[in-house]
């Protein structure tokens, strides 16, 4: 089962001929992901990595019946790529692009609310269902099939945790990086709900960080609705208040969103919180 992506995923790559797009497409294909084509305006009719390139998402979907798309388009053009994917009614959109202006994302977010699409990201590592599909930039070898669902705001920190799970012999159902930007398409709560409903997922790992209220909402959801055990880690306990730590999402807003506050809320909801991400496998046993 897993969630969102699996063997049946027919993936389109928006920006497939770009440097990043082509590099990661190659990696995804090597992992076994079913990439059905790519989109690069002006390069329709060409081929890359053995896949057809289209000028527009609409024509690509018509030709390939893609049911998911991944976006590696430059930040300045990413909103357009997102609107295009939404208009083409692609059920799953994963946006890797970093640095999209927040005003653009607020429009995308509003447009998304009444659409047929789900967006993961932007500014995220994507998602991976071990041995089935890798849709994004996570290194494939760190994961192995199993029944731990992993959801995270962060990129490399996710790899750290997934790697630790795998080393400890705990495989994963699906690993998802939802991104750390202020406006993202899919929240912790959305993913927790999917994991709760997924028969293949037995335990869940949640990786958060300072800034925003997403982890507080997650705690609320876990307390009220989750029956599966959840372990977690919150990055940024050592960050001084009011300092920006790379992510726009990591600004401590008016006393809200500190690591301490989030850890407390999650603990109160029954989540086991690690002091060190490498402890997570122990907390799941």
């Amino acid at each position, binding site marked *: 089962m897993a969630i969102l992506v699996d063997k049946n995923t027919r993936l389109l790559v928006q920006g497939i001929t770009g440097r990043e797009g082509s590099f990661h497409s190659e990696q995804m294909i090597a992992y076994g992901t079913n990439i059905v084509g790519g989109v690069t305006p002006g390069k329709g009719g060409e081929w890359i990595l053995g896949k057809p390139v289209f000028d527009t998402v609409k024509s690509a979907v018509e030709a390939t019946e893609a049911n998911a798309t991944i976006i590696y388009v430059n930040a300045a053009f990413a909103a357009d790529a997102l609107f295009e994917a939404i208009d083409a009614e692609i059920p799953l959109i994963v946006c890797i692009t970093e640095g999209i202006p927040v005003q653009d994302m607020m429009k995308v977010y509003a447009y998304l609310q009444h659409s047929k699409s789900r967006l993961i990201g932007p500014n995220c590592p994507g998602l991976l269902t071990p041995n089935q599909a890798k849709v994004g930039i*996570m*290194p494939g070898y760190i994961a192995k099939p199993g029944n731990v669902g992993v959801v995270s*705001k962060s*990129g490399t920190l996710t*790899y750290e945790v997934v790697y630790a799970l795998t080393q400890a012999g705990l495989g994963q159902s699906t690993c998802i990086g939802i991104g750390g930007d*202020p406006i993202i398409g899919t929240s912790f709560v959305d993913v927790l709900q999917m994991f709760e409903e997924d028969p293949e997922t037995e335990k869940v790992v949640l990786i958060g960080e300072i800034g925003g209220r997403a982890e507080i909402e997650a705690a609320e959801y876990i307390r009220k609705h989750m029956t599966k055990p959840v372990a977690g880690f919150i990055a940024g306990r050592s960050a001084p208040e009011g300092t920006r730590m790379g992510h*726009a999402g990591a600004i401590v807003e008016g006393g809200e969103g500190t690591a301490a506050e989030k850890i407390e809320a999650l603990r109160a909801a029954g989540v086991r919180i690690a002091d*060190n*991400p490498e402890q997570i496998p122990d907390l799941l046993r």
Partner: protein
Amino acid sequence: MNLHEYQSKMRFAKFGIPVPMGRVATTPQEAYEIARELGGTVVVKAQVLVGGRGKAGGVKLAHSPEEAEQIANQILGMEIKGLIVRRVLIDPAANIAGEIYLGVTNDRAAGKPVIMASSEGGVEIEQVAREKPEAIVREHIDPFLGLRDYQARNLASGINLPREHWKAFSRIATALYNCYTASDATLAEINPLVITAEGQLIALDGKMVIDDNALFRQPELAEMRDVEAEAKETIQARAAGLSYVKLDGQIGCMVNGAGLAMTTMDMTKLYGGDDVGPANFLDIGGGAQADKVATALRIILSDPNVKSVLFNIFGGITRCDEVARGILQALSEVPTTVPMVIRLNGTNAKEGREIIENARIPNLHSAETLTEAAQKAVAAAKGAL
């Protein structure tokens, strides 16, 4: 990116918001000239990108050009929360009958802009939010619809603004929202928006924060960055595309990814306590090349507090061999005796480790796990490695 008060108000004026007719001075003499031109009582206001300048003595009234010159002389060069005052704004003093707060920002939970008003203007809005949340009224804005007149009226009515000011208030709210969107701001705030004794509404103080991700399409705003107010390292880091924040611990950290960088900092504190802890936040980002890594290392080593350096790289887009080469390049240019601990994992980790080992640098130690790496870096900082 934060704008100074005077920059924010210039921007407000461009969108039709009434602001005082003041100007900026960098010398007491200029302050004198401006005060003379304005006539009457003026306010001399320190322009620093930090709150609390009033309490620090950075805002004062002057009743004559001579007094303005004298106050400017006191304020210019003053240090407020670690920042040197290099400019003062000379504004005509307003005849204040009432003070309002009005601000637009992004509500990340709602995924849309929110405009807020309060009759408790002039104080920190965070304080009002804590102590008297009902005094703040909010309207969420549909980004496609923009701020509508009825929303401005909802605010005016919500803060019990006398009806004769509604039209002016509505115009200012619309202008502020337009200024916010057209500037790719994440915050545009007027505090206080004063009602003068003459019945005019005027933006006495203002603040804008611009979305760094949008500066590529806001060249005019990008040029407003006050590089004088920034540390040399911050400027270098930005130029190299690095995210860098200086902290006051002793372990320099270089990590790829913001979440992992914070985690690495947390580990140094977990094992080293408050005494040792992280000397900085530094995210080299995804796919960092050797050059960028070298710049990052130079920035870390330029901090005299740094007693040890911790590299934690989990390769994904970033390739560990590239990072390894970057470190060696930097060390060849900036030799150092500071002990260093390096932990490479993920894409091309094996190749990266080989490069490091083959270089046989005496003060460069390897670690397998993050825990081991953090413990070693703490030990090194304490001189125990």
